């Protein structure tokens, strides 16, 4: 790639709803835009395309981006920021790639939060979104018994998708209480376009039990999950299953923002124009706080306009964003994780799945850094993306600092990061 092919007015990281919207709005303002995603195809997690090629909501955005000349790079991950205005990536083929920008829009999305309980490491015990995304890439679940558990509006969406793919979804166990969900359902009435989501409470999942105030306390099986024991109403019951799809809400992927020096609290801190605390760096979508696809879209649009210098256009969308933020707040309130979930894991339950470190060993440390140094917790290839949020939930420890490489990367790529290379 020549120098001109690697320099962009606006570089967008993440091709989910926020990133696609940002790229389209910036490109419409005649900015030279590049949109990068680490997945093989654009759409992000929520708009991940299925192999059956049913046109999803990402399609028109991707078409618009293409029409506006947005350069799309798929399967590439940012692993370092060697200097301001510059990112180092590794492509899906394992080659290093160096990209430069005037403005950067971070739309790196979110991942599932996992809460450890005995048996959560068994094969076929997965994330809820995790199993869904595998099925979208053809993972066979036809006729398989699946229990969906955890928390959040993702659970019924996953259950619906799995049923569509032929799975025998036995039940959905939502840890939040019915009263909170009823409030949430009422709040959806203020967002008519979200009524499809509300419909879950009205029976479009007929035949699937939707339990509230219910959560997994253990999973059992010989070499793979075969049953899950769930708590409900002060008692437990056991349901047999081939797959357990379990996630406890979402965690923003703030690592790149942290590496760039952006202020991060719950999510990446942004101002009205989605500007982070670092000059020229914008953030949009779930990384600024979990708020769903509609908030991500409007934040992405604002960030795209602003990154291309169209602040007036950006400001016209503030009101729409405010409405979505209202919804996001109601979402967070409704699906707050209950205290009982902090006591599911006895001391011998693993917290760090890369290095097989138990909660008891982690708990014995004085903090995250000591736990890392003394037990290897968080020192494996996931770089604490799984155990970090779990430990934060269980023990209240904030994650350690972020350093390059942000993802495991070959010595070859790492040694070429920051080369002025031609």
């Amino acid at each position, binding site marked *: 790639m020549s120098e001109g092919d690697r320099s962009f007015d606006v570089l967008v990281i993440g091709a989910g709803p926020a990133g696609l919207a940002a790229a389209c709005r910036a490109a419409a303002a005649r900015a030279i835009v590049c949109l990068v995603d*680490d*997945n*093989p195809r654009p759409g992000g*997690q929520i708009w991940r395309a299925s*192999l059956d090629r049913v046109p999803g909501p990402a399609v028109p955005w991707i078409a618009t981006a293409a029409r506006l000349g947005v350069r799309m790079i798929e*399967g590439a991950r940012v692993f370092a920021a060697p200097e301001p205005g510059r990112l180092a990536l590794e492509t*899906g083929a394992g080659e290093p790639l160096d990209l430069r920008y005037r403005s950067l829009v971070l739309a790196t999305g979110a*991942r*599932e939060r*996992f809460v450890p309980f005995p048996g959560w*490491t*068994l*094969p*076929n*015990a*997965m*994330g809820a*979104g*995790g*199993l*869904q*995304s*595998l099925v979208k*890439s*053809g*993972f*066979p679940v036809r006729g398989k018994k699946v229990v969906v558990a955890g928390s959040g509006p993702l659970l019924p969406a996953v259950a619906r998708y799995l049923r569509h793919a032929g799975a025998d979804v036995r039940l959905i166990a939502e840890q939040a209480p019915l009263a909170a969900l009823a409030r949430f359902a009422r709040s959806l009435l203020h967002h008519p376009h979200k009524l499809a989501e509300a419909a879950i409470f009205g029976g479009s999942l007929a035949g699937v039990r939707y339990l509230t105030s219910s959560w997994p306390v253990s999973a059992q099986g010989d*070499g*793979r999950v075969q049953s899950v024991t769930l708590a409900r109403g002060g008692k437990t019951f056991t349901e047999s299953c081939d797959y357990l799809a379990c996630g406890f809400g979402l965690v923003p992927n703030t690592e790149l923002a942290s590496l760039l020096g952006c202020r991060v609290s719950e999510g990446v801190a942004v101002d009205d124009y989605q500007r982070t605390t670092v000059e020229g760096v914008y953030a949009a979508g779930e990384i600024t706080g979990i708020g769903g696809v509609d908030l991500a879209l409007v934040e992405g649009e604002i960030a795209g306009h602003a990154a291309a210098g169209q602040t007036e256009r950006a400001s016209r969308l503030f009101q729409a964003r405010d409405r979505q933020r209202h919804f996001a707040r109601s979402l967070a309130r409704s699906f707050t994780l209950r205290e009982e979930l902090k006591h599911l894991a006895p001391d011998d339950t693993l917290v760090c*799945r*890369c*290095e*097989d470190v138990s909660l008891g060993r982690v708990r014995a440390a004085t903090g995250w850094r000591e736990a890392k140094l003394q037990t290897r917790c968080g020192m*494996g*290839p*996931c770089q604490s*993306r*799984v155990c970090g949020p779990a430990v934060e939930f269980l023990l209240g420890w904030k994650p350690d600092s972020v350093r390059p490489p942000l993802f*495991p990367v070959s010595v070859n790529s790492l040694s070429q990061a920051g080369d002025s290379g031609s």
Partner: protein
Amino acid sequence: MNDAVTLRVNGKPVTVPAGAMVSTAIAAAGFDLFRRSVTGQPRGPLCGMGICFECRVTVGGRQHVRSCQTACASGMEVQTDE
């Protein structure tokens, strides 16, 4: 299924739709165990989006490849742990 891909998982031939990920082929070939953890526990995919590294397998002799992020290719040799 016009465009299908045939590859081998632990020596066993398996055919999957074009565009399917290696994780799909492993499950389709009937394997639940993708890797052994550092203390020997059986593991399979968790996050499905390339973050957790639980679905690592050996592809074409290359170790530590995330099967959920790697598209199947014709003739590919995939090796899980035992």
